[in-house]
């Protein structure tokens, strides 16, 4: 007696040629994309590992606490650059946050019509503009007229770089607050203003903070706009209207120098930058994870 295919229990039937062909391609797809993912991940790990090895070797307490010294003089550090990074980024955050968050609120809650569409479009365009162009803009606006480099002009460039990210994440996280929560506030006889300030924005807080952290991470490693704004400095400088050392800029300067000693410092500085960005990214994730807690 012959058994035809269809009489066998399901699952024991031999595969048709067509199905075998499909499973074959499916396997190729899975293995191929898995290989690419592995390649990308190992490249990233390689970079991180290399910078870590090179960087840690040059790290020492003096590096974190001292200002730069001439080539070959021991005990040189980038403390002024670390502090300068905090100052430049801090002022940028102070400039960009209110503008960005309020723009996001506006777009999410009242953003219908041509004006809002234009703002959205401009934010998208802005996020694609090379940072060096924005640095040039800050230079023209803030350095040239005063004939004086300043940390403030670098903060301006950073603020512009951060704006699109802050705007879009604020808009998205506010738009995600359900309409019925808004309506619930209004039904209590609460004005749109109060409900926005006291209910909507706090409900969207985690998303807004995440956007902010990612924006900070983005500019912390930026170097190009600093070349002709903050300019750099060998000394302690806390006055934002003066040229100032910034870590990313120091890494650049040291890396293109001809000195072995400075190369080692460049690696150490790059390592510090990566650690900072890593911490920012991880905190952004942590903030999002806890977002539904009151």
């Amino acid at each position, binding site marked *: 007696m012959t058994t035809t295919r269809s009489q066998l229990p399901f699952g024991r039937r031999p595969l048709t040629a067509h199905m075998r062909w499909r499973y074959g391609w499916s396997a190729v797809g899975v293995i191929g994309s898995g290989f690419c993912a592995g390649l990308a991940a190992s490249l990233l790990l390689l970079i991180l590992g290399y910078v870590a090895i090179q960087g840690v070797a040059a790290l020492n307490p003096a590096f974190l606490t001292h200002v730069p010294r001439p080539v070959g003089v021991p005990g040189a550090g980038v403390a002024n650059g670390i502090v300068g990074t905090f100052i430049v980024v801090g002022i940028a955050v102070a400039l960009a946050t209110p503008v960005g968050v309020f723009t996001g609120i506006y777009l999410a809650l009242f953003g*219908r019509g041509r004006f809002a569409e234009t703002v959205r479009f401009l934010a998208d365009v802005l996020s694609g503009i090379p940072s060096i162009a924005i640095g040039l803009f800050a230079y023209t606006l803030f350095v040239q007229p005063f004939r004086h480099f300043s940390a403030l002009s670098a903060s301006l460039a950073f603020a512009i770089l951060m704006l699109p990210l802050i705007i879009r994440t604020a808009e998205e996280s506010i738009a995600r607050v*359900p309409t*019925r*929560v*808004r*309506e*619930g*506030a*209004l*039904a*209590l*006889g*609460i*004005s749109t203003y*109060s409900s926005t300030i*006291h*209910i909507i924005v*706090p*409900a969207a807080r985690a998303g807004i903070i995440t956007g902010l952290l990612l924006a900070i991470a983005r500019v912390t490693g930026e170097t190009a706009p600093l070349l002709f704004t903050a300019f750099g400095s060998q000394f302690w400088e806390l006055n934002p209207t003066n040229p100032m050392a910034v870590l990313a800029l120091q890494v650049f300067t040291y890396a293109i120098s001809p000195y072995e000693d400075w190369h080692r410092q460049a690696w150490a500085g790059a390592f510090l930058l990566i650690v900072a960005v890593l911490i920012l990214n991880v905190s952004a994730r942590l903030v999002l994870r806890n977002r*539904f*807690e*009151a």
Partner: protein
Amino acid sequence: MPAPYQFPYLVGGAETLARPASEPRPPSKMATDGLNVFYGQFHAIKHVTLSLPDRRVSALIGPSGCGKSTFLRALNRMHDLTPEARVEGSVTLDGTDIYGPGIDPVEVRHRIGMVFQRANPFPKSIFENVVFGPKVHGERRHRELIEICERSLVKAALWDEVKDRLNSSALGLSGGQQQRLCIARQLAVEPEVILMDEPASALDPLATAKIEDLIFALRRDYAVVIVTHSMQQAARVSDLTSFFLLGEMIETGPTAEVFTHPTDRRTEDYITGRFG
């Protein structure tokens, strides 16, 4: 002659139903006159004239999409937020047109509160949810806020379940508890009218029973308007029932009468379950 219809929903509800007809008709708290609501070109509410009495529960029934929510939202100017919605005709509260010139919609919604189909607590603590309204309306004294919180939660039959966790997140409550919290939140701002849009539709029978008891108790102090899909619920909690169909109000009257002697054939068809 057709045989008289049976009303299975009303079994056991007789004593509730006997009440409204015997009482004198209370004065009207809110009234609409020739109310029309449009969504763009779509005419969602057509010339509805209806009186909503004080200290009574008015039920709005009708098949899905007939405009019950649309009508309800016109009563506290919720449509102001929907750009494509347009309201015509008059809605009065104690004789004043709430769409009249110089009327502040925020003030209107302060006096006419609303409970929604799906519970919508704020992502804050239970305490903060209840006292948020009073706080924004200017109550700063902490002792007073604590009292308001307790009073409102007791009224909403939620106090015993949450009194030990007032500072934990409202989002951790069950659906039924969240809905009662939203009612408590409304009571805390002391409105005069409470609008409820299918407040129990997402709840199990036990939670529904609690909400229904609550609605029935609310009629002592408030004018209550409730949208419901449940005929039994309308019969149990309401004094007056209005039947809506395709944007029109077909029939209104004391609940007992609408349910036992509907004057319009379409009302009869709906409550006997022929359609809808």
